[in-house]
């Protein structure tokens, strides 16, 4: 008696599970569940047995009996390692069927300890993903997956949230290494509280369907969604952390400001050399002297002599304890037809540097509903409002000077921060220690640090909306079509003020950047299972991407006509204007087909064609393929110990276009001369004959788990070659131009990734100990540049970083020591190191990176600790260079081999003996003046190149979930309490005085440390209540 049975198949959260195979046992008949997890099938009679099968879940068999409705909740199959992962285009796939490496981090892992940048939460958690963190609220974090591919372009991965590409621009000025204000990378807008999971698609194979922009990998973020439940699930979580500097330089506390160890006199009284921003001065032995503040009539010590003594903690006292708070409320729920989740987050963070504060509010909505049985509408949107006030400058780049550059590089050690806290006179005049002279109290090189932070500000605000709306139509159980309209839109506004009376001319500038990217996407999906053995799925899609960027700004010129009136109208001269627009459109069609046989053999191929507006009309179309395959060995070999094993391999290509306006020659606008307009020829010759770039990637891997999946391992080897790169080729400037845009160059990355996991303890009494370890080594080599070109300059500030043929990307070239055949440094007859110019040193790229997590759980308690590490990578530390040049750091004092202070006169037995040999090979025996020694050393920059290796205790979290028994009388479903700590300790490093980790924005200029803001240690707590 044939009759119909129907029902819904849900996952463990109650969400309808599409694509589950519903089969009648012993036959070849079957249907897949549709989009909302429902199915309908005809069965021969009550004896029929239905098999519910879905990869990654335990297969269930249910005898029909008299039932006409059979609802099934599928249970994840842990033993099968059958994780479902989100892959390109948001298609969920059984991990076992993939021919490439995919690693996923859960939202809990990302959220464990709150940071203001989701990128930094990934530090050390995924093999082959290198994160470099900046310091200070809202600063940039840089992420590089499997090394850098592009010589001159973007090397950041594509960020995708629920299918919507999220712009990750970094509009920081000054990418040369000299510094600037770090306004952060735009992907930091993604709210960690809304993240369900992060999947990293590492290679071109995984990302091929995303096209050219995914060449550096994809960070695929899936947000939390509502689940079917009774009532509304309310979750409230709050966390507070306190931040303090993790590391400050070791300063010397023996000698104060000046260039010589005696005081000059002024009108008969000893005076400090106020103009000196160095500490080669007299001993801080308490001698009475006119200090800087004694010249200010408003100071209690006006006209007085005060003791010249050290203030050992003057710099540490400057920093404050920063406070970060995060509050999130979410409402989630759903019924048979609809699901929703609404979430609101408020995040605030104050910096350890006074006056800097970041505030971020996020509202996000995720909803879907079945309009009819076959029509599903869904949407998700986030609105972000970010404000970062008074962002301190880095290095030398910001308008009114970076206070940290002063502390680390140019300062007088005796200075008393308490005296400096009174930073301006009643009239608002800067009270600085670095006065020009007793008769001229204007600042020479450095202002009072508090004056800068209070009066000369860098502010930014960004408002952003991203998300999509989508309609899906299930044509037949196996065939669906879905369309999306997506947008990512933001306005980013910046204001920079330089107070009147500052060293630079007073000024005000503001800029507004508008970015919009719209994507219109159509995807047809077809799935069919043949004979219960052969799984076929086909995807075909089309995408149109339109992006538009506008930047409008104005700066005052020639000062402000009313002091401290910060408005463009206050410009004394005609203000300078920026008016920039760029437009780009890329249209694409793509398709992929995958075939699985008996859950054992998998093969997948994809093809994509792009048309880009930025390439020449006759060369703007490019097609690229990928092929991947895998074999599940554990289906073929029956070993008790082996729970799961798979080998995989892939080959793929991705084409790439370029940025707009690289084809045609145009003239550069200059400031008017009076009423004369001025234009100049550009410095770069554009090229009307460009063709697309190509990235070819290959990878093989093996993954397995043993002992009931208590031990798991994954190994990957990859080789990526990026060719025909579009880059500016440097040409002799005597041509009238500095560069010309060409297709040239090849760069190769090859590497190994290892991730291991294990559960050493899983005891009956509930104690579990989990271990996760990952490690990756990447080798980068610049193989080829344009014909005749051997070096491409990436950036230069003192040393240069370069793409040099035969060397890794980011190789430093600078001046250093001369070595003899024995490897000893050669010293000249007058006792100084000889200097070798234009030497090639290491690259900023690390040798290997990784992370190690241990977590213990016992009856509601959970303790986890995460360590991450990096080996190698070169860091140039300007703080160390100038901190020694200026006699500020501890290394510039001490005694020499004769037992005398090195700062004593050489004639009195002082001085420094350079550690080297003379040209005849005999040991150097010429002592030189300490100040001259360190000043000479500063031009042997090799000395300030360091190995940036580190091991950091990145995160520790101790949490406790209240047992249900305690909650039964309360209207609560759960309470979690956690103590959290981030950046707790640097367990190992080789760079003195500064943190070896120092992101310089998220661009390709890396490996420079220049008055870096101190990295911070955060300790706090987190409370979560579920109602």
């Amino acid at each position, binding site marked *: 008696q044939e009759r119909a049975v129907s029902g819904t198949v849900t996952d463990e959260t109650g969400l309808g599970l599409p694509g589950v195979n519903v089969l009648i046992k012993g036959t070849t008949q079957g249907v897949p569940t549709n989009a909302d997890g429902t199915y309908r099938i005809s069965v021969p009679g009550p004896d029929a047995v239905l098999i519910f099968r879905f990869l990654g879940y335990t297969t269930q068999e249910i005898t029909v009996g008299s039932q006409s409705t059979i609802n099934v909740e599928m249970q994840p199959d842990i033993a099968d390692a059958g994780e479902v992962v989100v892959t390109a285009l948001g298609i969920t796939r059984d991990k076992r069927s993939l021919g490439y490496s995919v690693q996923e981090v859960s939202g809990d892992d990302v959220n464990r300890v709150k940071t203001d940048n989701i990128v930094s939460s990934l530090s050390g958690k995924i093999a082959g993903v290198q994160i470099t963190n900046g310091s200070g609220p809202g600063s940039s974090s840089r992420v590089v997956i499997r090394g850098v591919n592009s010589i001159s372009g973007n090397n950041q991965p594509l960020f995708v949230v629920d299918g919507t590409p999220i712009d990750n621009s970094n509009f920081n000025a000054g990418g040369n290494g000299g510094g600037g204000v770090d306004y952060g990378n735009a992907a930091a807008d993604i709210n960690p509280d809304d993240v369900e999971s992060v999947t990293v698609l590492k290679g071109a194979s995984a990302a091929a369907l995303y096209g050219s922009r995914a060449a550096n990998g994809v960070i695929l973020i899936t947000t939390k969604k509502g689940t079917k439940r009774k009532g509304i699930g309310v979750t409230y979580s709050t966390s507070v952390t306190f931040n303090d500097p993790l590391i400050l330089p070791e300063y010397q506390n023996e000698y104060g400001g000046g260039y010589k160890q005696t005081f000059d006199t002024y009108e008969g009284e000893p005076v400090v050399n106020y*103009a000196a921003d160095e500490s080669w001065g007299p001993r801080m032995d308490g001698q009475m002297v006119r200090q800087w503040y004694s010249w200010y009539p408003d100071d209690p010590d006006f006209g007085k002599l005060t003791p010249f003594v050290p203030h050992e903690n003057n710099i540490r006292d400057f920093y404050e304890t920063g406070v970060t708070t995060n509050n999130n409320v979410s409402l989630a729920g759903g019924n048979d037809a609809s699901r929703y989740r609404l979430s609101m987050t408020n995040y605030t963070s104050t910096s350890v540097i006074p006056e800097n504060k970041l505030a971020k509010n996020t509202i996000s909505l995720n909803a879907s509903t079945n309009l009819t049985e076959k029509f599903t509408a869904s949407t998700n949107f986030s609105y972000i409002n970010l404000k970062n006030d008074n962002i301190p400058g880095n290095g030398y780049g910001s308008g009114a000077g970076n206070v940290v550059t002063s502390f680390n590089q140019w300062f007088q050690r005796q200075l008393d921060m308490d005296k400096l806290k009174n930073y301006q006179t009643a009239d608002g005049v800067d009270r600085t220690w670095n006065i020009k*002279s007793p008769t001229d109290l204007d600042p020479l090189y450095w202002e009072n640090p508090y004056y800068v932070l209070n009066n000369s500000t860098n502010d930014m605000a960004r408002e952003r909306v991203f998300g999509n709306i989508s309609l899906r139509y299930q044509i037949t159980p196996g065939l669906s079509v879905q369309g999306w309209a997506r947008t990512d839109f933001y306005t980013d506004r910046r204001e920079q003020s330089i107070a009147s009376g500052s060293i630079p001319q007073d000024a005000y500038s503001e800029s507004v950047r508008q970015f919009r990217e719209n994507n219109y996407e159509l995807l047809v999906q077809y799935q069919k299972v043949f004979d219960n053995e052969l799984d076929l799925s086909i995807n075909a899609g089309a995408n149109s991407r339109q992006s538009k960027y506008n930047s409008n700004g104005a700066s005052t010129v020639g000062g402000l006509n009313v002091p401290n009136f910060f408005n463009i109208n206050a410009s004394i001269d005609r203000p300078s204007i920026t008016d920039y627009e760029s437009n780009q*459109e890329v249209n694409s069609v793509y398709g992929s087909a995958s075939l699985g046989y008996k859950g054992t053999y998998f093969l997948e191929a994809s093809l994509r064609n792009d048309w880009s507006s930025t390439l020449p009309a006759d060369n703007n179309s490019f097609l690229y393929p990928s092929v991947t395959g895998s074999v599940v060995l554990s289906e073929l070999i029956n070993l008790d110990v082996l729970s799961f094993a798979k080998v995989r391999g892939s080959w793929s290509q991705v084409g790439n276009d370029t940025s707009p306006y690289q084809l045609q020659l145009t003239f550069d606008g200059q400031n008017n001369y009076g009423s*004369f*307009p001025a*234009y100049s020829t550009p410095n770069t010759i554009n090229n009307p004959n460009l063709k697309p770039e190509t990235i070819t990637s290959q990878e093989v891997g093996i993954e397995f788990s043993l002992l009931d999946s208590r031990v798991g391992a994954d190994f990957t080897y990859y080789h990526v070659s990026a060719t025909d790169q579009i880059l500016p080729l440097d040409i002799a400037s005597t*041509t009238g131009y500095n560069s010309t845009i060409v297709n040239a160059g090849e760069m190769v990355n090859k590497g190994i990734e290892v991730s291991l996991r294990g559960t050493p303890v899983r005891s009956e009494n509930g104690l579990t100990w989990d271990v996760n370890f990952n490690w990756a080594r990447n080798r980068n080599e610049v193989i080829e540049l344009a014909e005749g070109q051997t070096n491409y300059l990436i950036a230069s500030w003192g040393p240069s970083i370069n793409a040099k043929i035969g060397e890794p990307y980011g190789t430093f070239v600078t001046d250093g020591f001369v070595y003899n055949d024995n490897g000893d440094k050669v010293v000249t007859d007058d006792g100084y190191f000889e200097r070798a110019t234009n030497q090639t040193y290491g690259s900023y790229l690390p040798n290997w990176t990784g992370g190690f997590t241990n977590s213990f759980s016992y009856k509601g308690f959970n303790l986890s600790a995460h360590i991450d590490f990096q080996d190698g990578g070169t860091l140039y530390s300007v703080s160390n260079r100038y901190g020694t040049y200026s006699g500020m750091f501890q290394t510039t004092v001490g005694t020499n081999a004769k037992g005398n202070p090195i700062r004593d006169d050489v004639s009195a037995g002082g001085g420094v003996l350079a550690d080297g040999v003379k040209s005849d090979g005999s040991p150097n025996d010429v002592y030189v003046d300490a100040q001259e020694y360190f000043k000479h050393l500063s031009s042997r920059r090799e000395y300030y190149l360091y190995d940036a290796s580190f091991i950091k205790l990145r995160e520790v979290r101790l949490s406790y979930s209240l047992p249900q028994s305690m909650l039964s009388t309360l209207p609560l479903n759960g309470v979690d309490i956690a103590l959290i700590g981030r950046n707790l300790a640097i367990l190992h490093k080789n760079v003195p005085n500064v943190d070896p980790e120092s992101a310089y924005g998220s661009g390709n200029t890396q490996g420079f440390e220049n008055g870096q803001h101190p990295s911070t240690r955060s300790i706090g707590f987190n409370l979560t209540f579920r109602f």
Partner: protein
Amino acid sequence: CTGDFEELNTNPNDPVSVPTAYLMTSAQRSAIYSFNTTGMLYAQHWAETQYTSTSTYETEEASFNGYYTGALADLQTIINLNTNEATKGAAAASGSNDNQIAVARIIKVWLFQEITDIWGEIPYSEALAGVDNITPAYDTQESIYTSLVNELEEAAAQIDVNAAGMEGDIIYGGDMAKWRKFANSLRVRVGMRMSEVAPAVAESVVSSALGADVFADNSDNALYAYLSDAANDNPYYQHFLTRTDYAVSDVLVDFMKQRNDPRLPVYANTTGDNTTDEIVGMPYGVSEAIAGSVTNASISFPGDFVRSATSAGVIMTHSELLFLQAEAIARGWVAGDAAATYNEAILSSMEYFGVDAADAAAYLTEAAVVYDAANYRQLIGEQKWLALYTNGMESWSEWRRLDYPTLMPAPNAQEGREIPRRRAYTSREYNLNEANINAAVDRQGADVMSTRVWWDN
């Protein structure tokens, strides 16, 4: 794909064509940003107050990129647009084609002489060709000088004072007669530079040029007028708004004090930020430790006359022409009264710097100033060195040619170096134009500061 799709890559930010006048304005503005400060430091007019690397000759190499990619590229574009049949019609809106080309050629000569004087051999005949020749050959300085003379002769001849003058011209406001005077006066400078290596050529060039229409008084001076707005003001004014890196050197101050030179209060402010009556020079070429101990209050900074917002950029003055003429007379190349011309040259300089006529006349009677035919090189060298204050490049070059005044190397010169005779090429050139630069170095001698350029012997 639609037509819109291809239109999308049309740059909305920068135009594909502009009037050549706009390029001329840009070219002149970037031309005046030269190596002037380095010249002032090498000629010891100024001293560095704290970071003394330039005045202790620390860095041998220097880059000529800015000359080629700045003014020279714009000037070449102006010449090309006025020469090409397809564009010369449209370009004529900014002045007659010939007049525009002539002005561009004259400025090119001024700059190319400056470049070759700094480095010696440089790319010249094959330069400025863009992608058509990305490795231009280096030319010998002798051949460059020959060409510079020809260029000036042809440019002067090309000028038609009755046709439309150059638009966008900051230097002479399109006055083509003045451009012709400048071309001829510049020819005297170029010619005289060859006095020690090719005296016969020098004589013929100088005498021919002096016979043409040259500067008659200070109103003919080739000056770049800075404006008061921040985008166009004098770079020294900008510099001293925020920095105090350069003071007047003790060498110059002492030299002028010995001669009671009435220009001294114009050249230098008094100490204590112009609050005292004293003018004190900054010790020249000392180590940074020594320089750092000299307080700003105790030394004199350059005078307001030369570093106000609108202080002119000096290209060539009537005074300089008169010194060249006096030297030509002294050498017997042209007729005239060397002493009188020498005195006129000094008075012209005094007039330029706003010195009272009576003070100027008194100065001519100073024992160390009075002209002495037997010693013309020294006197002309010294007085010209004083008159060329603010024109650093020319001061350094003329010191190298005449070896007067007697200057001592920086006391704390790095690695015991002498006063530089040229600058070395940068590694960028070795990377990008290796064969040609190596050939130049083979001909010219080691690529160091102490190697002399062709005309300097």
